[in-house]
Structure formats: structure tokens, C-alpha cells
């Protein structure tokens, strides 16, 4: 399990190559990469604040929950903080599993929990404004699908 919280950029492809190389006994590898997207137009920067110390712990807990819940080989989570521009990589998760369904579901679970339970906050800066991104109801709703089963 590798968890990295970092300011530095990274290449999700290079990370996937490294992650996959260690897991040739697993049949399925799923990756998710999140990039800065200019939704409204005019985005100059996406600033990401986090809570050093807690961030790593929170991600570790989420990853352990995923490993308890699904038959997984390994988990990778990389999340950046600092000032990013449009098109830049924000974060990545990857999972390996014997079967594709486990790898897919665990990756979606990790994403849903990272979105709403890991201490990161995004701020969108344009030439006109600098606004904290509001949490979306749909992201909170996404968590509920993992309840109880």
C-alpha cells in the first residue's frame, strides 16, 4: 500500500507502470486520475489546502476499509496540494485484485471517501474571484451506496 500526499506533480502513467509491475499475480488493475478542469472558464489556478498529518491518516483508514471490504492485492493513493493549473493532475488512486469487480468497486469507494472524508479543500481562482469549492450533495450521496452491504 502506498499513500503519498505531495505538492509535486506526477505522471499517472508512470505510477501505473510502477504499481502494476509489483502485482503480476493479480488479474485486474483499475486506476482513476483526476485532473484540474476549467468548468466555468477563466480558471487561473486550483489551490488545494490540506491538514498535514491528518490527511495521511484519513487516507490510510479509507484504504484499510477498502482492503477489508474487497479482495484486493494492493492500493495506491497519491493526492497533491498547493497551486495547480488547468489540465494538471490532482490525484490518483489505483487498485489491484484477482477479479475486475473488486478492483472497480474498491477504486470507486476510495474516490467517494477521498472526496468527502479526507481533509482537502479546493479553491478556484480566476482573474475576478477566489472561491472555495462547495461540497456537493451528490458526493455525500455517493457515500451512502456503500452503507450496510
Amino acid at each position, binding site marked *: 500500500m502506498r499513500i503519498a500526499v505531495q505538492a509535486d506533480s506526477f505522471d499517472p502513467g508512470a505510477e501505473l507502470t510502477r504499481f502494476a509491475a509489483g502485482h503480476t499475480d493479480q488479474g485486474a488493475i483499475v486506476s482513476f486520475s483526476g485532473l484540474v478542469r476549467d468548468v466555468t472558464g477563466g480558471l487561473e489556478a486550483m489551490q488545494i489546502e490540506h*491538514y498535514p498529518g491528518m490527511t495521511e491518516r484519513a487516507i490510510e483508514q479509507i484504504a484499510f476499509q477498502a482492503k477489508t471490504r474487497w479482495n484486493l492485492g494492493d492500493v495506491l493513493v497519491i493526492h497533491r496540494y498547493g497551486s495547480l493549473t488547468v489540465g494538471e493532475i490532482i490525484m490518483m488512486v489505483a487498485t489491484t485484485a484477482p477479479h475486475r469487480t473488486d478492483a472497480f468497486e474498491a477504486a470507486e469507494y476510495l474516490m467517494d471517501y477521498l472526496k468527502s472524508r479526507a481533509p482537502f479543500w479546493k479553491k478556484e481562482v480566476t482573474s475576478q474571484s477566489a472561491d472555495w469549492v462547495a*461540497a456537493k450533495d451528490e458526493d455525500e450521496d455517493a457515500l451512502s451506496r456503500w452503507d450496510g452491504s
Partner: protein
Amino acid sequence: MKLQVMYFAWLRERIGQGSEQVETDAATVAELVAELRTREARYDLAFSDLSAVRVAIDQELTDLDASLDGAREVAFFPPMTGG
């Protein structure tokens, strides 16, 4: 007791600092918030809508009713928006 109190995102901006040491006898997070709000307008403003405030004690998510017994670090922040 002495607490390290931390603020993130717009809570940090409204309060004007990222962390501070607070000397308090508050038994719960809610009591601590009430105490902070009486201090200065900037705290009162920052905590005016508690539905938008999340809290962690010693880096574990919890809620406003949580006891501060044994706590060293309390953090306040808006709902997370990572990923």
C-alpha cells in the same frame, strides 16, 4: 486545559489564522465553539452556520457533541472537497 486549535479553508480565512493555543475549560467541542464565538466578531462570523462546520479531535473526524476529555488538537473546517 491547553488545546491546539486549528482552522482550515474559509474558517482559517475568516478567523485570520491557521492555528492557536487556547486555554479552556470547555467539556465538549460545542462548548469550545460557544466560548470562541464570545471572544471576537471574526469567530462569531466563522461559526455562524454550524451545519457548514466539520470538526476533528486529534486528527480523527468527530462531531460537535464530542467530549474534549484528553484532547490535544481540535480542528475546524468546512466539508471536505478533495479528490
